C-alpha cells in the first residue's frame, strides 16, 4: 500500500508527466475545455428554462423532479447510445455531459426564483414594474446566489464525469484512467482519479469563495 502511494507521488511530481501532448498539463487543459463548454451549453439551455418556470410558476413539477431524473441518468449508457447513433465524435460526450448538467441548473434556478419572498414580488408589481422588470430587477438578483450554486454544482459534476471523453478515445484526465486500466498500470489509474478529484475540489472551493465575496453585502433578507 505504502509502495503504491510512493509511486503515485513520484508519478504526480515527475517532470516528464507534466509536459508534452500526453502530459498532465495538456490533459488538464482538455479536461477543463470539455467541462466548461459542456456546462456553458447546459447553462444556455437550463437558465432560461429555470427562470421561465420560476417566473410564471408553471411547470414547477418538472423543475423539482428533473434533478432526480438527472441523478438516475446512466451517463456512460448515454454516451454509448449517442455514439451508436452519431458515430465517433465529441458529440456523444457533450450530449451526456450537458444532460448531466441541465437538471442541476434548472432545479436550483427554479428553487432560487421560488424562494423570492412573494411579498417582495407583489410589492414590485404594485410599484408598477412590468413582468420583465420584476424578473430582471427583483427576481434574478434575489435568486442569484442559488442560481450560482446550481452552476457550480453542474460544473463540479461535469468535471468529475468528463473522464468519459477518454472512453470514446478522446483526451482529458480520463485518458490516464482508461489507459492505466488497459495497461494494468494501477499508479496511472490512481493518478488520473486523484487529479480529477483535486480539480473538482479546487474549482468548488474557488467558486464558492467567489460566491461569498459577491453576496457578502446582503446576508439575511
Amino acid at each position: 500500500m505504502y509502495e503504491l502511494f510512493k509511486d503515485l507521488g513520484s508519478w504526480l511530481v515527475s517532470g516528464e508527466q507534466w509536459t508534452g501532448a500526453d502530459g498532465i498539463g495538456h490533459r488538464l487543459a482538455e479536461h477543463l475545455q470539455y467541462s466548461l463548454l459542456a456546462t456553458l451549453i447546459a447553462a444556455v439551455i437550463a437558465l432560461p428554462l429555470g427562470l421561465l418556470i420560476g417566473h410564471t410558476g408553471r411547470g414547477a413539477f418538472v423543475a423539482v423532479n428533473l434533478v432526480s431524473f438527472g441523478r438516475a441518468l446512466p451517463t456512460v449508457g448515454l454516451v454509448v447510445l449517442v455514439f451508436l447513433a452519431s458515430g465517433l465524435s465529441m458529440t456523444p460526450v457533450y450530449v451526456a455531459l450537458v444532460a448531466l448538467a441541465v437538471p442541476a441548473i434548472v432545479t436550483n434556478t427554479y428553487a432560487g426564483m421560488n424562494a423570492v419572498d412573494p411579498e417582495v414580488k407583489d410589492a414590485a408589481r404594485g410599484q408598477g414594474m412590468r413582468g420583465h422588470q420584476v424578473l430582471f430587477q427583483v427576481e434574478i438578483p434575489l435568486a442569484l446566489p442559488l442560481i450560482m450554486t446550481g452552476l457550480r454544482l453542474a460544473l463540479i459534476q461535469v468535471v468529475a464525469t468528463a473522464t468519459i471523453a477518454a472512453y470514446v478515445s478522446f483526451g482529458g484526465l480520463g485518458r490516464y484512467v482508461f489507459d492505466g486500466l488497459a495497461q494494468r498500470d494501477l499508479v496511472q489509474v490512481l493518478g488520473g482519479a486523484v487529479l480529477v478529484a483535486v480539480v473538482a475540489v479546487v474549482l468548488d472551493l474557488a467558486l464558492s469563495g467567489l460566491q461569498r465575496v459577491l453576496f457578502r453585502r446582503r446576508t439575511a433578507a
Partner: protein
Amino acid sequence: MIRFDAVNKRFPNGTTAVHDLTLEMPEGGVTVLVGSSGCGKTTTLRMINRMVEPTSGTIRLGGKDVLTQDAADLRRGIGYVIQQSGLFPHRTVLDNIATVPLLLGWGRRKARTRAAELLETVGLTAEAGRRYPHQLSGGQQQRVGVARALAADPPVLLMDEPFGAVDPVVRTQLQDELLRLQKDLNKTIVFVTHDIDEAVRLGDRIAVFRTGGHLVQCAAPAELLARPADGFVAGFLGAERELKLLSLTTLAEVPVERARVVREGEAPPRAGDGGPCLVVSARNEPLGWLDPEPGAPEVPSPVRPLRDTDSLLAALNESIASPTGLIVRVDAEGALTGVTARETIHEHAGRRHQEAARAARKAQEAREGNGRQDQGEETREGGEGPEAREHREAGSRKSADAVPPSPAAPAASAPGTSTPKTPGGAG
C-alpha cells in the same frame, strides 16, 4: 376621488371576496376600510391599482375607469404600501425609495435626490439611506415603505395594514407621523386595517366590512361610534365605543377652574385647610399634588398635565388616576392654566355623546328621502335587516357628501350616514 360602482369580486375557487360594493372615497381624505380577516377589505384596496381585477362593476379613479388604463402605468401613479413593507432586500434604502421615479424614467441622479428628500420627510437619517432594509428596525422599514410610495408624489396612496407588524408604541408614532404628513400632503388615502382604534384615529371616513365582502356602514368616525348601523358594527366597535368617541373630542371646550396652588419651596398649606394643593415650579409648571393632612405622603404625588389639544378620553383617564379627582391643565408652554373636576369632564363626555348621536340622526333624517327610493328594488339574501340594507345603500351613495372632519372636530360638522340602531334588524 375613487368611486366603486356595483363592484363584485369572485375568486375562481368560488369565494366571494367583495359583494356588490358601491362606495366613494373622497379626494384628500383618509378612507379606512375595516373588518375582520376575510371580509374583502384588502381585495377592495387591491382592485384600485388592479393588483386584483374585479369580476364585475367599475372602479373609477379621478373619473377614469381603472380597467381602461395600462396596469403598470396606473400603479406608477398610485402609492402602494403593504404590510411588512415589501422592500427589495438587494437594494439600498435610497434605491428602494427611488423605485418608482426610476421606473418613470427620471434618471438616476434626480431619482436619488428625490429619495434623499423623502428620507427626511419620513424621519430617517441620510445614513439610513445607504443601508439595506434588513439592517433597519420594523418601524424604520415601514417608514421606508411610506417614502417609497410617496416618491413620485402620487395623488392617491393605498396602504394595506402598513403598521400591522410593528409594536404598539412604534405604531402610535407612525400613525402620528402619517397624520402629520397628511396635513401637508393632502393625499387621497385608502387605508386597510383590522384595528378599530387605528381606524378611528386615522380615518376621515370609516367603511366597515363584514365577512363575505359586504359593506355594512360607511361614516365619519364620530357618527359610526355614536350610531352604529347594526349589531355587527356595534360588536366590531367593541364595548368601549363610547369611550372611543371621546378620543375624537379635545378638552378645549371644557371649562377651567382655579386651582389651589403652592409654589415649590414655599411653606406647605396647613392641615384641615381645604384638601390637597398643587405644587408648581417657579415657571408655573405643575409638579404634583401635596396633601397637607397628617399621615399623607410628604412628597407631592405626580401629575400628568393635559393640554387643550389632548382628548376628552385622556382627561377622563387622568381624572380616574388623579388622587383629587381633578385634572391639571396647562397651556402649550406647559404653564398651569387651572384644573377641571372629574364631574365636569364626565358631564361633558355625556353631552358629547348626545351631540354626536343627534348629529348622526339629523344627517340620517336629511337623507331619508334619498334612502327610501331604493327600498323594494333590491333583492338580497336573508338574515339582514332592512335598516342595515337601506343604510348600506345610503351609506355608500352619500359618502361623498360628507365633509371629512378633522379627528378633533365635533360630530355636528360631520354629517354622514347612519340609521337608527336596530341590532338584528327586524324585517
